[in-house]
């Protein structure tokens, strides 16, 4: 029973991974791509790790998988924010159909 539930979580995580990487290919802009990958891939990999936790139960592997979920949920958004800030400072243009760029407005207001 727990194996079936764990496999279900793994399939959900694989679907998230696949759609995130599809967004990495299809979307037009660095920021759009970053938004797609950092949500879908992080949630997908966390779901795969949670599936491993459900299959293995509360053994050593399960506890380590839970720690890895916590670590991934803490660090991945920080890395994504740093990457997007670096991309904006290095002068990557937004997509030409983008609506607003509030970070550039703030930077212009500071000066």
């Amino acid at each position, binding site marked *: 029973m727990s194996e079936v539930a764990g496999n279900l979580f793994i399939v959900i995580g694989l679907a998230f991974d696949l759609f995130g990487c599809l967004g*990495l290919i299809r979307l037009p802009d660095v920021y759009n791509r970053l938004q797609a990958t950092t949500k879908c891939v992080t949630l997908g990999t966390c779901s795969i790790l949670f599936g491993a936790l459900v299959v293995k139960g509360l053994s050593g592997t399960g506890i380590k998988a839970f720690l890895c979920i916590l670590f991934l949920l803490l660090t991945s958004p920080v890395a994504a924010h740093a990457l997007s800030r670096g991309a904006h400072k290095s002068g990557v243009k937004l997509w030409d159909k983008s609506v607003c760029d509030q970070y550039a407005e703030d930077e212009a207001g500071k000066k």
Partner: protein
Amino acid sequence: MRSKFPSRYLGWCLGLLGISLTLLFISIYPLPSLLRWQSPFLSRCFFMLMVCFAFCLFRLMRGPTPADRAVAVDTLGILIVGFCAILSIPTGRDWYIDIAIAWALQSFIGALALAKYLEGRGFDE
């Protein structure tokens, strides 16, 4: 910039056909002897993660800006954590999760260093 009517929808249909053919190929292909584990289901999950890996490698090859390549490298690191999590289930070895934790840490620090490099500042700031 705006493409003509038939070519755009033809591209959409070709992409859908390619994705569905890939999924069909993964689900019915007889498994090679290298990956014949106890459960063929997890082996097919492994193949599906390889498809995601190929997408990331595509963006790594022809990203127009360096920021695209940095995003692709960050995504590759998170996908490898998923690889290790899937590998730990059928083989029953728990040090794969140790590799996953270490790889997540390394990927985080690498992403921060790449962001610093993109900003064009020194690393000691």
